[in-house]
């Protein structure tokens, strides 16, 4: 299981040149999502499966009276499916005013990173990852992939 190290979270008054990321782990890899897009982080909710939907659609959840489609990030990022993990979390992101729930293995800290430190993702990334990432951030020993929410939610 991925444990996200407690990395420097500085409450910087000036936000110029920095970006806040919500970090989460899926299948041993750490990803980051722009904090501005994240609306909620919840424990796994009861899921209603949607028959005939695409495999990456885990189902729909009831988020305080709103029906929100849930995307299984393992299925989304590993087309052949990388199994399922026990402890699951929901990250609710917003696109065009509509909420979407991403089912991930774990949710870590919120990081504030300098934009200058975000590198472009290496071209050697597997194609299903290259399509949904917009950069790379070195987090000490580990590498964090920045998720491109728009691309991720194009299913």
């Amino acid at each position: 299981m991925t444990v996200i190290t407690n990395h420097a979270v500085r409450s910087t008054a000036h936000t110029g040149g920095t970006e806040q990321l919500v970090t989460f782990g899926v299948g041993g890899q750490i990803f980051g999502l722009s904090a501005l897009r994240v609306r909620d982080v919840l424990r796994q909710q009861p899921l209603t499966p949607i028959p005939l939907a695409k495999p990456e659609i885990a189902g729909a959840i009831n988020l305080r009276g709103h029906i929100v489609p849930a995307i299984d990030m393992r299925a989304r990022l590993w087309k052949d499916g990388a199994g399922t993990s026990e402890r699951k979390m929901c990250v609710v992101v917003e696109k065009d005013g509509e909420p979407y729930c991403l089912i991930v293995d774990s949710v870590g800290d919120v990081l504030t990173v300098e934009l200058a430190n975000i590198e472009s993702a290496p071209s050697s990334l597997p194609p299903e990852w290259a399509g949904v990432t917009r950069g790379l951030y070195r987090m000490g020993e580990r590498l964090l992939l920045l998720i491109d929410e728009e691309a991720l939610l194009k299913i």
Partner: protein
Amino acid sequence: MDDLIVEFIAETTENLSVLDQELVRFEKAPDDKHILSNIFRMLHTIKGTCGFLGLPRLEKVAHAGEDVLGKFRDGVLAPSPESVTLVLKCIDRIRAIVDSLATTSVEGDGDDGELIAQLRATADGETPPAAGAAQAGASPSAPSAAGPTLSDEGFPVAAELLEEVARSQGAVLTVVAPSAPAAKADAADLAKSDLAKSEAHAPESRPADGAAKDKAASQTIRVSVDVLENLMTLVSEMVLTRNQLLQLIRSSEDSVFKEPVERLSRTTSELQEGVMKTRMQPIGNAWSKLPRIVRDLANELGKKINLEMHGEETELDRQVLELIQDPLTHMVRNSADHGLERPEERAVAGKQEAGTIRLSAFHEGGHVIIEIADNGRGLDTEKIRVKAIERGLATQEELDGMSDDQVNQFIMRAGFSTAQAVTKVSGRGVGMDVVRSNIEKIGGTIEFRSTFGAGSTFSIKIPLTLAIISSLIVQSGEQRFALPQIAVNEVVRVSERSEHKIESLNGTPVLRLRENILPLANLSELLRINRGSRSWQPGANTFEGYVVVCRNGSQVMGVIVDAIVASEEIVVKPLSGILGGATYFSGNTILGDGKVILILDLNGLFSSISADAEKMQPEDTFADAVEPTGESVLLFRTLAAGVKAVPLSRVHRIESFDMAKAETAQGETVVQYRDRLLPLLSLDGEGGVRQDGRQIALVFGSNDAAVGLVIQSIVDIVQADLVLQKASRMPGVAGSGIVAGHAVDIVDAGYFVERGTSDLMLEPYGAAA
């Protein structure tokens, strides 16, 4: 666009529809000063506001119209049909300009000179001989402009309006603005800035006459529909949460929360009712345009038509109201054009010269019923039969077996019109099918009955609101689904032991229900819900569950489910696009226990059935002799004594033919069947095929290579193992066996297919398949 203009457009549009109605009333009661002054005041308000907002074209037209009305009011001018028509045209022009204003933000560039001149001439009393004739000529001679026509979409709109909009838009696109629009813009800007400063409200700044509006008007406010929709959603959520709370309280004795929760519950219910009420509107709003339309139609068609309206105050959800407006208008047009006869025809038929169209609306158990009845000529069933064949919608054989009522249903099919000639009003064959699909889209149904010579009545049943529907919660595997209750006819329990059980027609499930064979959709298979051995499978007779019999228009089908969970009121929410699979789901909702469930879409389920029908083609192993199986067996009698049997899976169809239409080809009796020759054969030793009356035949084979075996009667369909006990020497009979305790001859369908098709020099059956 400027808020003031937006408000002006909304208000004027409302006023214009009232004006239409009032003018029609005025024409009938020219002495009613009250109506007249009401009309005058509304037009005056429009004129006044236009001047104020800097809309010169609109102002001029309204002014000219007002002049005529002023003369009516002062008694200087007596209203005549011509002058009222002219004022109505003036209203139409205003409407067109307002529409242009709404879509393009400018008044458009039309020329109103002629209309204004006519209005002035009328106002100046130049009417009687000269101008009167000119006007009388003007209205019928310009019917292409004044008459309603059909847009591509199918619903009629005033041609004039279309033309006007097209013209004004064209003008905006092509004409490089001369000085007038520029000046107009300046004026509008000026008005805007002035108003912005003073934050003036349009109602207050209206001329004095306008302020004298009904008191009721001042006690209403305009609220954006979005706000109401949002409120409705919130309240629905609250109701669901309340239900959850109530469930919790019930399970715990003596909770301190009991009393406050109950109070909350009551308040919530009242709140829900109140919010629902804000969305309700009297159906009269949807009818308001009809008197005018009927008046114009009557003039144009040379008919006398009374329009009666009952139950205008019946309320229904504004969303539903909007959706039924066009279908309703279309049906009233239909009644006026097709339904009612000309005065002379009516006189000949011994009826009053004036035909009546009666609209009525009333509530009935959570639904609104709207009836459109006319006392016209009714549907001519014979004409429909002819047309149905012409259009290739049915064959003569099929029609022969239909009742008049069934034949009449053809008018609901696409591309069907019995109007003798295509008139401007109707007869283009875009009609009732659109009406029906629009009504079904909102969960409604449409029925009609018609008596030839006495009139037709259409009856529409629609839900009060689309926001909350009652639904049947069914279960398939572990998953629950909601089925809209309005579509559910009945629920049938099926099991091996019960009266009803699911049978298989070539792997496709069917249910025999009161002499009908009902096609079934297997929900777990359609939705690929894995639920192991409990699922219904062809051949497996252990299934126990339910068949929900649903109807969609005139089609009826059954849905196989495992269990019926409950009947619940649900709040329909649209499905997120990302979820896909939308073919079978029309939305989703949250149940009282907080679970998300999907709402089944009947249109989707029905189309799955028609797709399945393709699969009902017989298998390609026809030549095989009958083998022992546990399947449905059709028992029948022929001329020779004894009961015959054939596996139902080998029977393509059972048809009844009119033998007077049979022909002879190469010594064989043949009938034309689905554009092909179908040889009719009889069992050997029974002689030929009779040449008169009606003859039942079992059709074996596929559409490409089929034969008919003539029989006397169908005995039964039973479930049995066809085991050959005794071989046969007779061609066409595989042998004898025991079915349901009786000895039967088992007919070899493959033999007949081969015999019939080789005679017809077709490719052997195997190749054709």
